[in-house]
């Protein structure tokens, strides 16, 4: 008779993810039905049909928008005016999205992602300003500081068991003050004036400016490879490495992970450290794009950090991530932004569009899921 009780207890103690919709009865029912009474033996392959893959939808939408914008404003295809700055934006926001993705993998959130970027950028700026550090040393400093502050967040969460939302919210407040105080103290204002050698090139050059003989590189900004490397490494980390997969397993079920011998506490710290590291990278990249290390870096990171992964099909529940989807999500929002800019929409219309796109994309996703379920495939 343990069987009944097992089911009861399970429903009662079903761990509630911090923001999971409690009353989403349908979804839970569907999930529970899928879990409780599966057919014995072989059931249909869980692979969703290709059209139920949100990434495919994103590519289609991006292509359609690019076609639309470029037919309305041929300037959209202008390399110097649009494409290069667009790539720069995308680069920064891909990394910002990945920073959030790193903790979404656990079902956690990092509300301090912008402020971690700010603190990292400050550290890099300080290295350049006070110690005349070469460009790459500043980058390393930014990454280390970001990873360290992320690890602190992860350690607090592990040690106290307080919700990641609350911890990073508190950290965000704290860092907001700290960063401003640090700039006051060390930069005498809100920004460092020093620019390390190489910064201007990194900011404005593209590979087209570098030629070997008659062959020049493509019109791709020098910052793009940073994002690409981050993307590939994050993808490999979660897809193929032991640590990354253990983070995902921890996100999928903390208790099962603990009982499978995964050091869950350490994995939580790992994921948050990775989030901080990527935030640091994003902060560094934005400082490069802006041409200054200032206290306002990271101010606008919070929303895009969620937008990109969520559009790309990463759920807040944890246990599954899509790095590629995040890149596509960041691309989509940046394309919309640039396109509407060119069409001379005001900033306000732009925000409305992005909000609506997010809603529509997610609703379609939901419709796709329902359709897929009806076709006998469980998502």
């Amino acid at each position, binding site marked *: 008779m343990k069987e009944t009780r097992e089911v009861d207890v399970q429903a009662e103690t079903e761990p509630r993810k911090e923001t999971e919709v*409690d*009353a989403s009865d349908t979804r839970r029912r569907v999930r529970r039905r899928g879990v409780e009474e599966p057919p014995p033996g072989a059931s249909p392959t869980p692979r969703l049909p290709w059209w139920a893959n949100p990434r495919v939808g994103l590519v289609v939408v991006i292509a359609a928008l690019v076609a639309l914008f470029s037919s309305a404003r041929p300037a959209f295809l202008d390399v110097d005016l649009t494409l290069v700055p667009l790539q720069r934006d995308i680069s920064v926001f891909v990394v910002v999205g990945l920073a959030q993705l790193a903790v979404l993998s656990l079902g956690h959130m990092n509300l301090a992602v912008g402020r971690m970027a700010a603190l990292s950028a400050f550290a890099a700026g300080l290295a350049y300003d006070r110690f005349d550090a070469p460009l790459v040393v500043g980058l390393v400093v930014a990454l280390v500081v970001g990873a360290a502050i992320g690890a602190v967040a992860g350690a607090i969460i592990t040690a106290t068991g307080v919700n990641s939302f609350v911890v990073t919210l508190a950290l965000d*407040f704290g860092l907001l003050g700290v960063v*401003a105080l640090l700039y006051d103290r060390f930069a005498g204002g809100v920004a460092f004036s020093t620019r390390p050698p190489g910064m201007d090139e990194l900011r404005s050059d593209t590979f087209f400016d570098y030629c070997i003989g008659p062959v020049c590189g493509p019109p791709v900004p020098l910052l793009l490879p940073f994002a690409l490397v981050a993307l590939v490494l994050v993808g490999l980390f979660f897809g193929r490495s032991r640590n990354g997969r253990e983070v995902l397993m921890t996100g999928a079920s903390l208790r099962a992970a603990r009982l499978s011998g995964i050091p869950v506490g350490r994995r939580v710290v790992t994921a948050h450290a990775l989030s901080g590291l990527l935030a640091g990278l994003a902060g560094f990249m934005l400082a490069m794009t802006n041409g200054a290390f200032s206290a306002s870096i990271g101010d606008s990171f919070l*929303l895009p950090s969620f937008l990109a992964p969520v559009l790309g099909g990463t759920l807040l529940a944890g246990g599954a991530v899509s790095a590629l989807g995040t890149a596509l999500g960041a691309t989509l929002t940046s394309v919309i932004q640039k396109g509407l800019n060119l069409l001379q929409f005001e900033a*306000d219309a732009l925000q409305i*569009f992005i909000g609506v796109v*997010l809603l529509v994309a997610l*609703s379609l996703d939901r419709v796709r899921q329902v359709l897929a379920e009806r076709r006998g495939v469980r998502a």
Partner: protein
Amino acid sequence: MSATLESEVRTRRGVTTSLHRTELVLAAVAVLGFTALAVTTQGNILQAGTLRAVLQFLAVPIVIGLAQMVVLAVGQMNLSVGVLTGLCAMVSASLMSDTGLPPWLAIPAGLAVGALVGLANGVLVVLTRINGFIVTLATMSVVSGLRYGINGTGTYQDYSPGLVALGRADVLGLPVVFLAAIATAVAVWVFFARSVAGRMLLASGGNPFAARLSGISNDRSLVVAHTLSGLLAGVAGVLVVALAGSVNASVGDDLLLPSFAAPIIGGVALTGGVVSVLGTCLAAFIVRLVDVAQAQYGINPRWVDLVVGAVVLGAVLVSQRRGRGSS
């Protein structure tokens, strides 16, 4: 397995008892902090002008904290409260300035906009089954755009001298806006403590399964909570209009994170089912005290954020320790 069950019961048992203690501790901190401030500033803070300012600028934080608390009650979050406050303020101001509507019509219109957007949030959450965090993230973007759409970056002022005079007036030595905020808090308290709708909402938040078996529609609770949250954001918007004398589209930009801080410090759980109006108000007051202290001592204003961050984490840690200790 019974161990799991018992521990679950134990954590839940901690919730209610520790909530009352959280309120007590917060009250003690508020009184001590206020007294300390009064003593160290040689009574400066007790002077009529200063005290008025303290209370006047407490009104919006209280209401915005309540707006967030209402959705936390059902285990949801509302990221759009801040910008929605701005939108409601802009709508009211615009109706008075641009269309010449009298305040007694413009104010309900502002409130209606808040409630409508909240309703939209709730309906979207229920219909799409998408996480409320994400839905309100999207509507936050939309509302923020609408907010700028009303008057671009322009500022409304002199919309209604009467209203602004009222917003700065006192009754029995207390600022009207502060009294309005307190009245709102009382109304919210009555809603959760006494009204059938409020109890049902809390039941949904506390145990959706039990609520469903008791004939309560969890979907309806979600919609009600979001609508109420929007309405409260509308109240905050109207208070801003009455208090500030001039509003622009940046109103509400800095309200989102504080809206979480007040209920969280006040002991409201993110998982839903428990609210504390008193705790939320006291938390807003304590945060306000930090602000006042900064102004009184001429400290770098940046310290305020640092302290608020520490208070948020500290409050949660302390209540968690106690929750554990009491079991």
